[in-house]
């Protein structure tokens, strides 16, 4: 049960990381757009 719990947790954190990475990419894109507007 410990292993399964670990694997579940790993899956969850991996999925979360993926979402966060996507959000970070989007935020960087938006940030660059804004920066260009200010330049």
């Amino acid at each position, binding site marked *: *049960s410990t292993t*399964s719990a670990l694997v579940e947790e790993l899956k969850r954190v991996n999925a979360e*990381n993926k979402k966060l*990475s*996507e959000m970070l990419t989007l935020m960087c894109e*938006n*940030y660059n757009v804004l*920066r260009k*507007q*200010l330049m």
Partner: protein
Amino acid sequence: ISLNLNTNPFDRSFPAKLPKEEIKVSTSAGVERKWLVKDKSASELREELNRVNSENKKIKEMLATVYENYYALHHHLEKLQSRKSPEIDHIEQPMKKTKQDPEEFLGFPNGLSSGKTENSSSNQSHHYQQQHEQKNQLLSCKRPVTDSFNKARVSTVYVPADSSDTSLTVKDGYQWRKYGQKVTRDNPSPRAYFRCSFAPSCPVKKKVQRSAEDPSILVATYEGTHNHLGPNASAGDATSQAGSSTVTLDMVHGGQKLGLETNERRTMQEVLVQQMASSLTNDSNFTAALATAITGRLLMEQSRT
């Protein structure tokens, strides 16, 4: 004969996640080994989990930083957009007008110059009365009734002056460079044109002419606002023309403040943008994470197509 004690139901649910050797174990000699492998895989899982968790934490921190930077930038952009039109036009517009005829530089407000409206005797007496009221108050700061744009950047100051003084000098705490003089219709006194001594970086212009109706009053018309610190008001201003110099300086300082605010804001924006750009690009973790994220996204899009 399988010796799997089924202590871990996950083995069936997620076989692909476990090492192949664990599934293959089927001899009694391998029981001990199996447990070792299980322990090892659990410890590996923990390590992997720790690694992913720390990565998760880093991404969250980076995301928080980017959010902060983004919203700071967004806030500044909104501020700029809301205040942009009056102040930027304020500075840029006078520069565009430098080649215009000085006569078109500014119009005297309320018929104080040789305007057609003064042909009417009633108007003339009305304006004359107005001027005397202004003279009694020593100084009056008015805005011409041209249009809303000029209202924001043109000021007229009436200063009592000695009739024998022909210098057309109005002391307002700033240094001016005279660049022209012109005789206008219906006014025996010439009109002098001045630029701020900081020109061309400072766009402020001033023209001075005696009032046609009352030669003891100097009419100084200012266009634009100073974008630099001016010299302090001289003591002579304060003693000889206490009322006028005070009001004049208030007006001039107001313009100066606006110019300074604009400069400060521009500098702040530039510094902010540079700091954000350099901090983001210099952070190897950030760029690596960003590259990974972008690559992952591209791969995802490719796999979809």
